[in-house]
């Protein structure tokens, strides 16, 4: 049995080995990009059936983002939505015979986690400036700075191991059962994998969103407490 930690190298591109996971990722990227281009080509005010289905997907994403963060979804829709859709398609790509999900390989999961790490910095700096982002490390009080720095790395690492471990264990178990029992036996396990893939894509996107919005919220300048008091006074006057 092949080690699930090793990568299958398909061919060498100069000094760079191209693994199977990378090729599958390229395929998924091409399908997603071309599909998105084709689907959004003719958008109208009176939606066709195709456009209505697309709008349903985007509206669901928006509702989830709004319910998770309470913020406006527009700055996060692109990144979080792409993360979710890509991981979902990648996890479910094991349905195509002969394909292994690229998220079951170390490098893809690590790359996605690094993307989340960088995007936390990007959104944090964009919302509060460099000072605001740095201030978010001293969030409850400055004693927590070393712990917060450590946490910003470990939480991303835990996202990486979580995605990799879940998807890889599904593929691994299906492989073991197929080699022991035969052709049709792993089908219930594959159905379970579909659920796991969906949940993991959702979790990854939600966790990325939570990390980003907590950094953004902590880096923002303090809201002045002054306007709160007059409103209480006026309400007292009214009563």
């Amino acid at each position, binding site marked *: 049995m092949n080690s699930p930690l090793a990568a299958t190298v398909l061919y060498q591109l100069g000094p760079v080995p191209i693994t199977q996971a990378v090729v599958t990722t390229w395929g998924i990227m091409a399908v997603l990009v071309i599909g998105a281009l084709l689907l959004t080509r003719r958008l109208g005010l009176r939606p066709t059936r195709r456009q209505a289905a697309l709008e349903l997907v985007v509206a669901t994403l928006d509702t989830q983002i709004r319910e998770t963060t309470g913020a406006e979804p527009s700055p996060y829709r692109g990144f979080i939505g792409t993360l979710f859709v890509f991981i979902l398609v990648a996890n479910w790509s094991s349905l195509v015979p002969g394909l292994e999900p690229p998220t079951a390989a170390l490098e893809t999961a690590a790359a996605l986690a690094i993307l989340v790490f960088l995007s936390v910095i990007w959104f944090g700096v964009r919302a509060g400036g460099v000072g605001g982002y740095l201030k978010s490390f001293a969030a409850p009080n400055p004693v927590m700075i070393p712990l917060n720095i450590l946490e910003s790395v470990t939480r991303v690492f835990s996202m990486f191991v979580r995605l990799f471990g879940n998807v890889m264990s599904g593929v*691994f178990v299906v492989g073991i059962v197929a080699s022991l029992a035969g052709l049709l036996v792993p089908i219930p396990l594959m159905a379970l994998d579909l659920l796991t893939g969906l*949940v993991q894509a959702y979790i990854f996107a939600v966790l990325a969103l939570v990390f980003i919005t907590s950094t953004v919220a902590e880096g923002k300048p303090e809201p002045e407490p002054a306007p709160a008091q007059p409103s209480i006074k006026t309400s007292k006057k009214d009563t």
Partner: protein
Amino acid sequence: MEYLELASIVCAALAVAIGSVGPALAEGRAVAAAMEAIARQPEAANTISRTLFVGLAMIETTAIYCLVIALLLLFANPLLA
């Protein structure tokens, strides 16, 4: 070095076996609490189940760590290389 191989196989099995007990108990408790909450407040079922899924995935990560350690012991053991 047969001793090292034997030890890593046993330890891999132990890691998965012991490491799955804790998350199993924890997930049971989490689901039980969520069921109770949904039974009390069926209108909050959406929020509760969303939080439940995120929490379950967090708990499950502990077991996944054990699995990764076991696979490291079996397939990428630095002592056996």
